[in-house]
């Protein structure tokens, strides 16, 4: 027979020593339970993302560690532009990339076997033309005969064309000069160009620098920019679980934005290492939501027609973009977000 001897002091000692143990056990149980909720083994994934604020959901998921919670060992790979991130995926350097719609269209038109996993952010006010008043530009018509700095191969190029067309300005009436976003401020300052077209955060900083000396030409009607997550078709086929986990993490980030936008902005600013005030300023211009909708198809096809007419690719036929959109992942984790008619 075992006799338990327990005086008051020893009992209290035992209890105090047991409590942390119980607490750890509880934490372990919760942790295990969480891990048990994640289907399949953990997977390593490299995500190429843009340092521009056009993929809030991805930024938040990185910052909050949602990918890890959902069973992904992520390796972040930052890029200044979405087309560069996409190039990393095309080059086999990353598994997923965040990029805008234009680089996707251009890749598809050049027969790159990519697929769009989801649209994660849209905006009608991300891109604008910034002109110098000193160069006599006060309205869209004043752009005629002016030099406009544009980062070609990005959504900005499409925006500028659409803007010019919408305001009956022939493309030949302006002089488009290719330049990177970080070159634009100096180009304007040195009057190398009369105007530039770009997106945040360059656009935001130019607004701040130029102030009243600048003319800012927006047109929310002519272009809906979609930021997407893409991968190689092969990868999506071979790693459907990884894609589901990835999308789950983005949906968590979407929930955080709905429930606590201040916290979400803070996390984005923290991850992108930019001023939180800047993020707060541009925040209303974006809708961060995981979707695959019919508008995306229209957008891609519209840009495809634009690219074909502009001779940006050898391909002249319209591709079936349904073949370049991977709906299984989002259908598995949030079916109501898939409104593409399928």
């Amino acid at each position, binding site marked *: 027979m075992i006799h338990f001897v327990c005086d008051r002091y020893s009992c209290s000692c035992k209890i105090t020593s047991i409590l942390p143990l119980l607490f750890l056990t509880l934490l372990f149980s919760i942790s295990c339970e969480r891990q048990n909720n994640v289907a399949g083994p953990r997977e390593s994934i490299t995500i190429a993302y843009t340092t521009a604020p056009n993929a809030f959901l991805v930024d938040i998921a990185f910052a909050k560690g949602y990918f890890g919670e959902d069973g992904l060992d992520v390796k972040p790979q930052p890029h200044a532009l979405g087309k560069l991130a996409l190039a990393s995926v095309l080059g086999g350097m990353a598994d997923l990339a965040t990029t805008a719609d234009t680089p996707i269209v251009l890749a598809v038109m050049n027969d790159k076997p990519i697929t769009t996993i989801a649209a994660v952010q849209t905006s009608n006010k991300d891109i604008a033309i910034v002109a110098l008043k000193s160069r006599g530009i006060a309205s869209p018509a004043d752009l005629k005969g002016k030099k406009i700095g544009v980062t070609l191969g990005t959504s900005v190029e499409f925006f500028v064309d659409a803007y010019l067309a919408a305001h009956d300005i022939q493309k030949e009436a302006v002089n488009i000069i290719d330049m990177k976003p970080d070159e634009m401020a100096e180009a304007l300052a040195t009057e190398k160009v009369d105007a530039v077209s770009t997106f945040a955060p360059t656009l935001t900083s130019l607004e701040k620098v130029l102030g009243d000396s600048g003319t800012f030409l927006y047109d929310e009607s002519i272009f809906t920019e979609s930021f997407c997550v893409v991968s190689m078709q092969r990868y999506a086929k071979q790693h459907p679980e990884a894609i589901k986990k990835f999308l789950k993490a983005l949906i968590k980030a979407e929930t955080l934005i709905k429930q606590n936008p201040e916290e979400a902005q803070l996390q984005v600013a923290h991850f992108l290492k930019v001023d939180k005030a800047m993020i707060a300023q541009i925040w209303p211009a974006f809708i961060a939501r995981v979707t695959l909708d019919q*508008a995306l198809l229209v957008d891609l096809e*519209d840009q495809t027609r634009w690219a074909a007419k502009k001779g940006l690719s050898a391909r002249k036929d319209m591709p079936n973009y349904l073949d370049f959109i991977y709906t299984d992942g989002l259908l598995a984790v949030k079916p109501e977000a898939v409104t593409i008619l399928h």
Partner: protein
Amino acid sequence: MKIKTRLRINALISLGVLVLILASLAWSYFEMSSATRKMDLVAEMRKVAFERIILRDDYILNHEERGRIQWNAKSETLKGLMESAFETFTNTEDLALLKEVQANYIATFILFSRFMKKTGKKEDNFIEEIKFTEADSRLIGQVFLRAYSLTDNINKLYESALRARTSARDNEVIIILVSLISGVIALIINSALIGKILTNRLTALGKGVALIGAGNFDYRIATEGNDELTALALASNEMAMKLGLSYTSIRSLESEIEQRKRTESALRETTEHLNNLIDQANAPIMVWDPQFRITRFNHAFENLTGRQATDVIGNSLQILFPSDQVEVSMETIRKTQTGERWEAVEIHILHIDETISIVLWNSATIFAMDGITPIATIAQGQDITNRKVAEEQLQRTLADLERSNKELEQFAYVASHDLQEPLRMVSSYTQLLAQRYEGQLDEKAKKYIDYAVDGAVRMQGLINDLLAYSRVNMQGGTFESVDSHLALGAALRNLSAAMQENGALVINDDLPTVQADTSQLTQVFQNLIGNAIKFRGTDPPRIQVSAGDLGHEWCFSVKDNGIGIDAKYADKIFVIFQRLHTRQEYPGTGIGLAICKRIVERHRGRIWFESEFGQGSIFYFTLPKC
């Protein structure tokens, strides 16, 4: 908690559940109505948006003014619906969606208006093929894109309203279920508690009442709680206590009655026994009441008086006394009524044959509880008639004896005193005859004269002794408190020459003070110690004088180491002039111990001795303490 309260709680729970369900139904009705209104509104928006798309496509294909007007009209309708929606939807997410709807609506409106303005009215040739510029295509593409977004937004809004209605319905069901389940559980628990309480308490109460009913009035029912059953238990306990008290009283009364019966029975037995004892007693016994009427009269009394008890009971005591002593006797008897208790009262009783008996009475009067009122007096008599006669005879004899002794003592005294003179004459003239005729008388005559003189001298001695013996009573002093040490000291002083001559040693213990004639006590010590010296052995005399307390008398002892006395002479040595030795062996007349005996007896004491021949002697004498 009282059972009534518990039952009220049950009713309140039921009422609460009902109110909750009704409130839930009302709330859910409101919510579902609101959600339905939203759904209807959004459905209308969706319908208008769809019609607007058809009209848009109609215009794109045909560029008819009618299409433009209809499209504009539908746009206005949609705008109005959106404004209503902004007033109807309150949820943040819904409002955000609505803003997206609004943005896409505005975008489509601006874009398509721009398109319509750009393309203008087809005036001349309505069958001419319509061609689109790149800018037109771009505008149409954006219109399509925003229209899809608009439709998506409206669908999401519809889904949100649908979810709200579903949620309201689900919440209603949940609330009703939770209310019902909670209420039912609460009712079940409360009812079970009531049931348990009632069962337990009623069982205990029933058991307690049964026990009390069975006569266990000390049993107390548990009274925990403060409900009606507690009050009932308390009332039952109080009832039990009162019943117990009543029962105890009855039991006490019964016990008392039983005890009284036993007492009465015992009393009867005792009375009967006493009656028998009284009746059968040898001594005459009678009882009279405070009016001096005879109430009991036993057989011995019947014998004493020659009267039957049946004849005297109820009569006055006076009939029992000689006529000349009635008053005296009644006076004596009346004193008993004041509590006087006879120890030995002589009352003469008259026999029926006129003879009189002298009866020695003792009595006791029994009084009532107040200690004052006499109830009865019982008297027991002893017929001492014969004893009185004997006593009178004895008194007469004693008187004769005393008178005789006195006469004898007087004679002895007178004789011894009067004999002194003639004896002295005989002795003197005999001695004178011898002197006158000295030389004329022969030796024989001288020898005879010596004999005569010696005889006269001895006779004189005897007479002196006899005189002394008779003086013990004749001339004895009064008794007084005497320190025995003083008496002993006087005796020793008188014996000092003999003690010195014989080397005698006298020691004494502590001696008491006694009531005695001092000179006679000195005489007793002197005679006893003198004998001890006189009848000494070869060793110098050692004499021990002691005294012991025998309670009512002192016992003195004189112990010596002399020659001792043979026990066979115990009766002889205290007789006057009795000698155990010749005059040649030990001089003396043999009067000493006789005088001691006479002195001790005069003091109402005793004298005796213990001795063995050759072993010394111990003489004892006693003196009463008073």
